[in-house]
């Protein structure tokens, strides 16, 4: 039985490894405003902390973090509920990272993905982040064949959107 301290250190370590993923989720599931991204980040970390005792390491930590983050992002409705307060995240550093990620160079990437629905956005996020179909199935709870079909439709939808943009 690991001590609480050890478990907490493991949690922070995983969070550090996956903070890029968390930031990307914040970028893609908000309008990239600082406050909104910050709120979503806090919600995701709070949800991860709550579900941390149930994480038994059967899946990769990155898969677990991404799954939780996408679920929180998809249901990012403000709910008045008590949650642990997470501190010591440097807001200035968070701002700089967000600025780097939302550089106008990536405007096309955001514009296209922003037009997708929440479910499709989560799937294309996983697809572009190179998750395997099996991992996507684990995270979303959909069957692998369903995921393949959906990704195919998303691609077609993105082409249509891209063509509309060019016109």
């Amino acid at each position, binding site marked *: 039985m690991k001590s609480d301290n050890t478990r907490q250190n493991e949690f922070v370590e995983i969070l550090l490894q996956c903070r890029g993923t968390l930031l*990307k989720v914040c970028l893609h599931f908000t309008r990239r405003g600082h406050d909104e991204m910050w709120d979503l980040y806090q919600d995701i970390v709070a949800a991860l*902390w709550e579900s941390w005792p149930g994480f038994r390491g059967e899946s990769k930590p990155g898969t677990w973090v*991404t799954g939780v983050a996408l679920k929180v992002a998809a249901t990012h409705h403000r709910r008045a509920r008590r949650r642990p307060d997470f501190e010591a995240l440097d807001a200035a550093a968070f701002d700089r990272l967000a600025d780097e990620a939302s550089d106008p*160079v990536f405007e096309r990437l955001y514009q*296209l993905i922003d037009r997708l629905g929440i479910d499709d956005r989560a799937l294309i996020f996983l697809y572009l*982040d*190179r998750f395997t179909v099996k991992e996507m199935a684990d995270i979303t709870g959909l069957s692998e064949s369903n995921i393949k079909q959906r990704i195919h439709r998303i691609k077609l939808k*993105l082409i249509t959107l891209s063509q509309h943009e060019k016109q």
Partner: protein
Amino acid sequence: MKNNNQPHTPPAGRQNDPADALMQELRQLWDQRDARLASAMEEEPMPAPQPAMAPAPSRKAGSRRWRYRAAAAAVLLAGVAAWLALRQPASAPVLTARHLPAPEPQQPLQAAHQPEATARPADRTAAPAAQRKAVAAQDEVPAADAAPVQDAETVNLTDVITKTPADELFATLDEADQQTYVRCNNLCDAREIWTRTKTLL
């Protein structure tokens, strides 16, 4: 960041597929953005978010603990109260004649000569009492205890009481049976006195 463990490159025959071309473009942008994020994180490592508090035990568990403590305290208090109650008889008021039912008209005479008889209910002491005393007089008792039985007034009273049917029946018993009856009757008296005493307490 997700590792590049899956190339996701379209097959050679589908290189010109517009969907795959768009995906390639998006993936390039995705990877560039990842690289930008990674370098920014290396330049300025973001402090680890520290949970301000560990998951606190639920309120239910806490209140349950207090309930257990309250129950244990109640049991302890009950034990102390019971212990004090057990000690109480030592200082309890002594049973006196006024705690017992009023004697029948004949009783004061008997009571005057035998103070211990006042503790007995009248119905039990009425008929066999005189015979009991007569038997007791023959028993091996200390002379001091036996002395009141030899009182003249008691003998007179015995003459009156032995006229009752119960005493007539008692008189038909042989000596051994009479002694047995007296002993049993005394035992019953003792039990009844104890019961009444408890009721009064």
